[in-house]
C-alpha cells in the first residue's frame, strides 16, 4: 500500500488580473493587438499578473485528515482547485494515488426544474458516483435530508433549508478514497447542523484521506492532527495543528498600546495594494488601549490612504474570537452612515457604543470596498484586543466562558401562575 495519497511539488498558479472577473470580447483582443502589434495578445505585462500560489509542496499520507488554513485570498481555495483538477497549475506537479472526490460547494449542478429524486441522481453522478451506487444509497440520502414527502416536487419549490439539506445529504454519501472539501457550511436549522457535524466526525474517524479547507479553528483543532498554513500563496507553516494554528493567530499583532501598523501586513491578500495603513484602538476618552470592559465603548481609528478617490467607501469591522470564529461585524452601510468621498489620506473613526462581549481575546478584521470600484483592501484578524471582566453585573459575580461570547441584558420577576 502506497503511503502517500497526495504529493504536491513546487505548485504555482498565476492569474492574469481581471481575467477571472471579466471575459474579453474579440474586439478587445483585436484592439489590443492593434495598439501593441508586437506583443503577443495572450501575454500580459508583469504588473497585471499575480501568483495565487507559489512553490507549494506538501505530502498527505493515506488515512490522514489535513487542514488547510489561511486568510481570505491566501490561496487555500486555489490550492484545492488545482488538486481537484478544476484549474491547471502554472508550475509544479501533483501526484494523486486513489479515487478523488471534491466538494467545493454544496449543491453544485442542482437543476431547479428537476425534482428532488432526479437531482439526487444527477448531483450524485456529477460528484462522481456510479448509478448503481446512488441507487443503493438513495433511501439513506433521502432519510438524511428529511425531504421524503417532496421527492417528486421540483427543487425550485423547495425552501432554502430543504434545498441545502438535500444537497448536503448527497454530498455526505460520497465515498471516494481521497476527499477534498472546501469550507462547506453546516447547513439548515440547529438540529440539522448537529447532524452534519456528527457525520463529519464519523468521516474523520473512518480512516479516509481528507484535505479540508477551513476558517474554523475550533473544527480544525478537533478534526486534524496536522495543518498547512497558506499565506500570500506560499506555505507559511506545516505541522502539528496546535503549532500551526498558533502561528496563524499570532499574525494578529498583539500590541498593548492599541496601535497596529498595517502597511506591509502579511494578512493582506497578494492581489491588493495597501490602502488601510494603520489602526488605533481607543477608549471613549480617546486614550489608546487594547483592553476593554465588556460594556465599554470602543473607538477604532482606521488610517486610509487611497491612490485614487473612493467615491462611496463601504467599510466593515469584523470581530472574531481567538478561535477565528466571527462573533459580529459592524459596517457603515448597515445603517446608512455615509462616509462621503475619500480622496486622500484620512482617518476613519468608528465608535462601537458597547462591546457586549464576554471575557477573552478577540481579533479585528477590516474590509474596505468602494461601491463603484469594488474590493479595495482587506485585512483579516489583524488587531488583537482583550475584554476583561470588571464586575459588569454589578454584583461581583464572575463571567465564565461557558456563558457564551456575548452579554445581553435582562430583567427578572416572579408572577402568579
Amino acid at each position, binding site marked *: *500500500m502506497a503511503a502517500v495519497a497526495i504529493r504536491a511539488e513546487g505548485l504555482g498558479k498565476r492569474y492574469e488580473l481581471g481575467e477571472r472577473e471579466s471575459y*474579453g470580447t474579440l474586439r478587445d483582443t483585436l484592439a489590443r493587438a492593434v495598439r501593441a502589434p508586437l506583443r503577443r495578445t495572450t501575454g500580459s505585462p508583469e504588473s497585471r499578473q499575480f501568483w495565487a500560489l507559489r512553490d507549494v509542496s506538501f505530502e498527505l499520507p493515506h488515512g490522514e485528515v489535513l487542514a488547510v488554513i489561511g486568510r481570505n485570498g491566501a490561496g487555500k481555495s486555489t490550492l484545492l482547485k488545482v488538486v481537484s483538477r478544476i484549474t491547471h*497549475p502554472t508550475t509544479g*506537479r501533483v501526484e494523486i494515488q486513489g479515487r478523488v472526490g471534491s466538494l467545493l460547494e454544496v449543491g*453544485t449542478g442542482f*437543476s431547479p426544474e428537476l425534482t428532488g429524486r432526479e437531482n439526487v441522481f444527477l448531483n450524485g453522478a456529477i460528484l462522481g458516483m456510479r448509478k448503481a451506487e446512488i441507487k443503493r444509497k438513495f433511501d439513506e440520502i433521502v432519510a438524511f435530508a428529511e425531504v421524503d414527502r417532496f421527492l417528486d416536487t421540483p427543487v425550485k419549490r423547495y425552501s432554502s433549508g430543504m434545498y441545502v439539506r438535500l444537497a448536503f445529504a448527497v454530498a455526505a454519501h460520497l465515498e471516494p478514497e481521497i476527499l477534498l472539501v472546501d*469550507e*462547506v457550511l*453546516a447547513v439548515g436549522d440547529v438540529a440539522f447542523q448537529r447532524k452534519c457535524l456528527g457525520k463529519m466526525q464519523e468521516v474523520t474517524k473512518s480512516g479516509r484521506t481528507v484535505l479540508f479547507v477551513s476558517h474554523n479553528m475550533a473544527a480544525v483543532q478537533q478534526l486534524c492532527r496536522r495543518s498547512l498554513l497558506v499565506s500570500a500563496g506560499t506555505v507559511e507553516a506545516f505541522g502539528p495543528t496546535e503549532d500551526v494554528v498558533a502561528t496563524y493567530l499570532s499574525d494578529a499583532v498583539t500590541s498593548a498600546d492599541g496601535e497596529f501598523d498595517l502597511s506591509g501586513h502579511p494578512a493582506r491578500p497578494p492581489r491588493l495594494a495597501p490602502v488601510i495603513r494603520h489602526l488605533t484602538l481607543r477608549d471613549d476618552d480617546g486614550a489608546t488601549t487594547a483592553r476593554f470592559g465588556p460594556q465599554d465603548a470602543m473607538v477604532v481609528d482606521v488610517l486610509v490612504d487611497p491612490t485614487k478617490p473612493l467615491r462611496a467607501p463601504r467599510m466593515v469591522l469584523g470581530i472574531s474570537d481567538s478561535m477565528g*470564529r466571527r462573533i459580529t461585524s459592524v459596517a457603515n452601510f448597515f445603517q446608512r452612515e455615509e462616509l462621503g468621498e475619500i480622496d486622500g489620506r484620512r482617518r476613519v473613526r468608528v465608535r462601537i457604543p458597547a462591546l457586549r462581549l464576554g471575557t477573552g481575546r478577540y481579533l479585528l478584521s477590516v474590509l474596505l470596498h468602494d461601491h463603484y470600484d469594488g474590493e479595495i483592501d482587506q485585512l483579516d484578524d489583524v488587531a488583537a484586543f482583550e475584554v476583561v471582566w470588571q464586575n459588569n453585573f454589578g454584583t461581583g459575580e464572575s463571567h465564565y466562558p461557558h456563558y457564551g461570547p456575548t452579554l445581553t441584558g435582562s430583567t427578572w420577576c416572579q408572577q402568579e401562575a
Partner: protein
Amino acid sequence: MSSVAPPPVAAPQESAVAYGEAAPLVIEASRRVSLGLGELWSYRELLYFLVWRNLKIRYKQAAIGVAWVVLQPVLTATLFTLIFGVLLDAPSGGVPYPVFFLAGLVLWQLFAASLMEAGNSLVSNEQLVTKIYFPRLLLPMAAVFASLVDFAIALVLLAVLAVAYGVVPPIAVVTMPLFVTLTLAAALGAGFWLSALNVRYRDVQAAIPFLTQFLFFATPLVYATTLIPEPWRIFMGLNPMAGAVEGFRWALFGVDLPLLTAVSAVVAVMLFATGLVYFRRTERTFADVV
C-alpha cells in the same frame, strides 16, 4: 457557522484497498495535452445523466412538452412547402416537396440545435465548470446527443409522411446512418470549437444565430443542388451539412449522389479533429476564464 467535511459513511473494507496497484494520477504544469479518450469512456455514466438532464429540462413546464419535437418540423415544413414548393416551385429532384423538404429539415434541425446548445454549453454550465472536475468535453457532447433524441422522434414523423406520399426508399437506405454520423461529426466539431471560443469570447453567443441562418441557406434544404450551376456546385461541399443532406436524400429517395458529399465528409472530419484538439488545448483555462 462551522466547516463540515462531508462525511462518507465509513466503509472500512474499502479503505483497505491497495492503493499501490493503479498508476497515480499526475497533474503537471507542462504543455503536453492528450486527448484523454480513455478517461472520457470512464465518465460515460455522467454523459448519460447530462443528456437526460438536458432533455428533461427542455420540456419541463411546457404545456404540450415533447409534442414540440413533432410540431416544430411539421409547422416549418408546412410553411416552407407553401412558399418554396407551391409558390416558387423550387426543384426537388422528382420527390414530393413536403417529403423532400422534411428529410433535409430533420437532419438540419439535428445540426442547428446541436450547434446552439453545444456552443453555449460551457458558459451555461459555468457553475459546474468552476466547482467540479470532469472531462469538459462531456458538456458539448451531451448537448449534441440530446438533440439526437429529438432527431430520432422526427425521423418517425418523416417515415409517416413518406408512407403517406407513397415514397418507397431504395436499398441504399441502409447507408442512412452514415450521413447521420457525418452530421454528428460536423455538429460535434463545430460544438467543440464554438463552446471553447465562447468561454473567452462571448461574441460567439451572438454569432451563432447568424451562423445558423447563413448555413441554412447555404445548405440545399429548400432547393436541390441542381439549382446551382455545375462548376460551383462542388464548393457547396465546404459546408459539411450540404453533403450530409444530399447524401441523406440519396439514401432515402435514390436521387443522384453528388460528389460534394465527399468534400463535405472531409470537411466534417477535419472540423471534428481540429475542434477536439482546440478544445483540449484550451480546456485548462476554462475555469479561470469562464
